[in-house]
């Protein structure tokens, strides 16, 4: 797909040493901004996207023509109010919306990377994104925020750059990817690599697309983003445009049809190799391990004000994993608030219209911003 025209990119000239040992340089980071940076440059919020997100946080995504992934939370007068704040979001390293990733060409041989792209980590992602601060001349962000893998980036960012944000909002996330979550990611990767069109990652060369595998990966993952109760209430055992069971393997149930649809639309907008790389980065994320098992050490140098949010029905990044971060912060006397929002929308709650969540987010940001001014 030709996406060049609608995508802003920053070419990072400075060499970046990745956790895997390789060094990359002169690589693109694609980004988008919303609202405007004030003269004091103290109203910037860096938002981090989750596994399948991109830099198009709100408004209409110019590539997919659909609403941006965080349209409920970000925009004029919304929780992250773009009348007030300057919102920056970039596509993660390894992504497929313009940032350096497996669908780019290897400068050494001009072949598309495929699985020759270096394995990247959450740490590599935030180190690459840090360059955006220099680009905009921002000395200190007002806030950093993100849910799920976005939350992992938030935690890694403030650990790497303890003085670079006044407030920190990790949402529905974890400091260490659980065995269950690694298992789900592996299921997705296996679905992709089992598709013969994946062709050992070289599908671009032969104009193939491992769409079936990627769709199954998305379907499996999508189930983990919802809750049992939410699914039951929305779909139950309702049948899809039919009076009775057909005694076959067509989509008899609405939930089947829904998942198939989710899989098929995902394939149109996402790259299979990027899915492999980004899920790997999530699996490798273990912030405590970076500090010899003591998570508190990750935050020992920051004076930032934290606000951590989890959701009751999120079983992928459950409240306890979010609370572990709160506990680590409290044990060093950090400034941390925490709320668990009641919602039956599962892990996806942070992306949806959940008023208690959006109000809490808005109140925290706006009150902190006023306090900051006074």
């Amino acid at each position, binding site marked *: 797909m030709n996406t060049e025209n609608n995508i802003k990119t920053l070419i990072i000239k400075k060499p970046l040493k990745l956790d895997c040992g390789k060094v990359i340089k002169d690589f693109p980071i694609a980004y988008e901004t919303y609202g405007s940076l004030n003269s004091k440059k103290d109203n910037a919020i860096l938002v981090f996207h989750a596994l399948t997100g991109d830099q198009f946080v709100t408004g209409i995504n110019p590539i997919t023509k659909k609403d941006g992934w965080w349209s409920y939370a970000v925009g004029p007068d919304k929780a992250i109010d773009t009348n007030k704040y300057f919102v920056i979001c970039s596509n993660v390293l390894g992504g497929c919306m313009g940032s350096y990733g497996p669908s780019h060409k290897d400068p050494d041989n001009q072949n598309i990377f495929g699985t020759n792209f270096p394995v990247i980590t959450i740490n590599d992602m935030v180190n690459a994104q840090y360059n955006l601060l220099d680009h905009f001349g921002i000395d200190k962000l007002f806030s950093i925020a993100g849910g799920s893998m976005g939350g992992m980036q938030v935690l890694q960012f403030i650990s790497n750059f303890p003085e670079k944000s006044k407030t920190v909002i990790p949402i529905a996330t974890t400091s260490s990817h659980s065995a269950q979550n690694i298992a789900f990611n592996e299921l997705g990767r296996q679905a992709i690599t089992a598709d013969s069109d994946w062709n050992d990652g070289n599908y671009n060369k032969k104009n193939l697309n491992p769409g079936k595998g990627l769709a199954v990966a998305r379907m499996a993952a999508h189930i983990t983003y919802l809750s049992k109760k939410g699914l039951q209430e929305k779909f139950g055992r309702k049948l899809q445009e039919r009076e009775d069971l057909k005694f076959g393997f067509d989509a008899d149930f609405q939930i089947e049809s829904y998942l198939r649809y989710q899989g098929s639309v995902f394939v149109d907008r996402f790259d299979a190799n990027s899915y492999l790389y980004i899920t790997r980065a999530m699996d490798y994320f273990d912030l405590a391990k970076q500090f010899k098992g003591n998570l508190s050490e990750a935050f020992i140098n920051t004076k930032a004000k934290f606000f951590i949010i989890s959701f009751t029905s999120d079983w992928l990044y459950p409240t306890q994993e979010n609370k572990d971060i709160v506990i680590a912060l409290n*044990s060093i006397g950090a400034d941390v608030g925490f*709320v*668990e929002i009641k919602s039956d929308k599962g892990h996806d709650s942070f992306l949806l219209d959940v008023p208690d969540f959006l109000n809490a987010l808005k*109140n*925290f940001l706006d*009150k902190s911003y*006023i*306090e900051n001014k006074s």
Partner: protein
Amino acid sequence: MKNEFKVIADLIEQDKKVLDVGCADGILMKFLKENKNANIRGLEISKDKVQECIAKGLTVIEGNAEKDLKQFPDKSFDYVVLSQTLQAFLNPELVLDELLRVGKKAIVTIPNFGYWKVRFHLLFKGTMPITKTLPDEWYNTPNLHMCTIKDFFNFIKSKDIKIFKSLALNDLNISLINNSNLGSKNLFADLGIFLIEK
């Protein structure tokens, strides 16, 4: 703001680090933040109350004192406040120990079950007492371990907890409690306020 909170606030000096356990809608926290420049945190179990605190710009952690106090390091706050909640815990002794571990000092207030109106209610009506500080019916009260000012006074003494100040509150009247007037304060005060340290 209720008189109890004014008395509590008077016990706390400027610029202190304070934890309000069971901070409810954050009225006391807000007052301490604005008037005493306190570095203040709240711990609150009710989701709705947590939201009210966030709307006031207060730092609050949703949680349960019985489980969640243990995450705070020893003596990490100058003051830990517990207002009219001790009697609602499954294990008040454990909570009291935790308050005194986390706080250099603790301020604990208790609704007095020895208050004359409570005694009269039970004596003459023969039903569970309902008063201003004890507004619930026996079947829906959160209070599991009611005590009197005398009970609490004797209890903390038996635990070798130091009492810096013990105050009896009856509407707007505040008076000091000591060994000699304990009996009368236990009869005429509806609330006891204790500044303690271990």
